[in-house]
């Protein structure tokens, strides 16, 4: 399932929080909505009274006292209250990482996500892309950076939006109460195919998470194959890394375990041999303007061999 599919449906994910860092955001949203509704009702009633009410009411409404109370004191009190309430609710969302917390560095690139899993000392243990794996029921610290322009990571069911700003590191905490797949989307226009810049967060049971981590940390061990030859000959390794092979490019997503990704093209397509072949042959038709060239030079056989090779990189 692609991120686009996961964001469909009812209730909208933003109203359906699935963790303690998204819950407060939804609560604040509802409280603001309710306050807005109350204030709107008061204004409508006052307007109606001013237009159609008896002379005595209209005189009251036009008085200086009401302007000071309703136009100044009331907004100051209500907005200050809401601000304090909102800030206390969301205070813990961006505290710096504590020792022992799982740390993942997510870098926004035009138009995909570089994902580095950090070890205890903050060094990068291994890299992946376009999906974030987490253990459930534990807070995870995301360190958000940007490589080029401002992006924004929004995982509606797990956390609020937070911008990724070049030259800065913003901290976003998230936690999933249950294992599952949670969709995310870039929420700050970053040019070109910005709308096609998605991501999935996969929360695994602890055992499965450990297994995934061990597997993901290992280099790929591809057997010699036609697909591997095509990959080398087509120059894919200039932009992509496949750990354990000669491919060590950094301009595009790490492909060491591309076969185990759920999606392709930064969350937009399901991942199987068909979409892999489609992406390599003509990613420009699927995500116009993205930074990978189309390959109208591969034969049908080569394309299928390449797709099979990529899919086997589990």
């Amino acid at each position, binding site marked *: 399932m692609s991120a686009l599919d996961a964001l469909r449906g009812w209730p909208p994910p933003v109203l359906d929080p699935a963790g303690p860092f998204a819950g407060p955001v939804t609560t604040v949203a509802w409280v603001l909505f309710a306050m807005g509704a109350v204030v709107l009702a008061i204004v409508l009633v006052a307007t109606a009274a001013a237009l159609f009410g008896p002379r005595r009411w209209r005189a009251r409404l036009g008085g200086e006292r009401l302007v000071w109370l309703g136009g100044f004191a009331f907004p100051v009190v209500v907005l200050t209250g809401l601000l304090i309430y909102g800030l206390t609710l969301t205070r813990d969302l961006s505290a710096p990482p504590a020792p022992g917390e799982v740390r993942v560095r997510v870098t926004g690139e035009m138009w995909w996500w570089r994902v580095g899993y950090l070890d205890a000392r903050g060094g990068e243990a291994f890299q992946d892309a376009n999906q974030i794996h987490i253990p459930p029921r534990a807070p995870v610290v995301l360190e958000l950076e940007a490589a080029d322009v401002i992006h924004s990571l929004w995982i509606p069911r797990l956390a609020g939006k937070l911008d990724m700003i070049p030259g800065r590191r913003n901290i976003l905490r998230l936690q999933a109460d249950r294992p599952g797949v949670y969709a995310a989307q870039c929420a700050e226009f970053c040019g070109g195919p910005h709308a096609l810049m998605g991501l999935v967060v996969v929360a695994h049971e602890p055992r499965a998470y450990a297994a995934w981590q061990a597997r993901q940390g290992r280099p790929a061990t591809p057997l010699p194959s036609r697909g591997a030859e095509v990959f080398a000959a087509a120059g894919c390794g200039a932009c992509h890394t496949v750990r354990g092979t000669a491919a060590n490019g950094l301009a595009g997503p790490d492909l060491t375990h591309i076969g185990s990704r759920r999606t392709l093209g930064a969350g937009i397509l399901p991942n199987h041999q068909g979409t892999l072949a489609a992406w390599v*042959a003509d990613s420009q038709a699927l995500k116009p303007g993205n930074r990978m060239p189309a390959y109208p030079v*591969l034969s049908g056989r080569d394309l299928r061999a390449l797709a099979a090779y990529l899919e086997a990189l589990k």
Partner: protein
Amino acid sequence: MRRWDGLCAGASAVILAAGLLAACADKGLPPRQLAGADPERGREIARRAACGACHDIPGVDWPKGRTGGSLAGFASRPLIAGRVPNQPQTLVRWLRDPSAIAPETGMPAVPLTTAEARDVAAFLYTLQ
């Protein structure tokens, strides 16, 4: 003048199309029935599997890839991929493993069960 020309051309196109349709209906292509397959389910399966990554498929909004060509009018094509007779059983086999039928094809085996492939085939036969 212009307008009339246009209208006439339009009208003759309609008549021609109607004639063609009638011709089809008359002589009839061999029936392409897949017992129990559901075209609507097939459309949703094709959407989810993103067959559109390579094909422009009427009824699937996005994506509209260019690698495999449009599937508009597939139901009235005599051949699958210009190679083998467009018959239901062949189509179901093609969808599950095209290279078994055409070793040079660029279309990889798409992960579909036989039941899913039958639904997708039924959907493809709705593309007039």
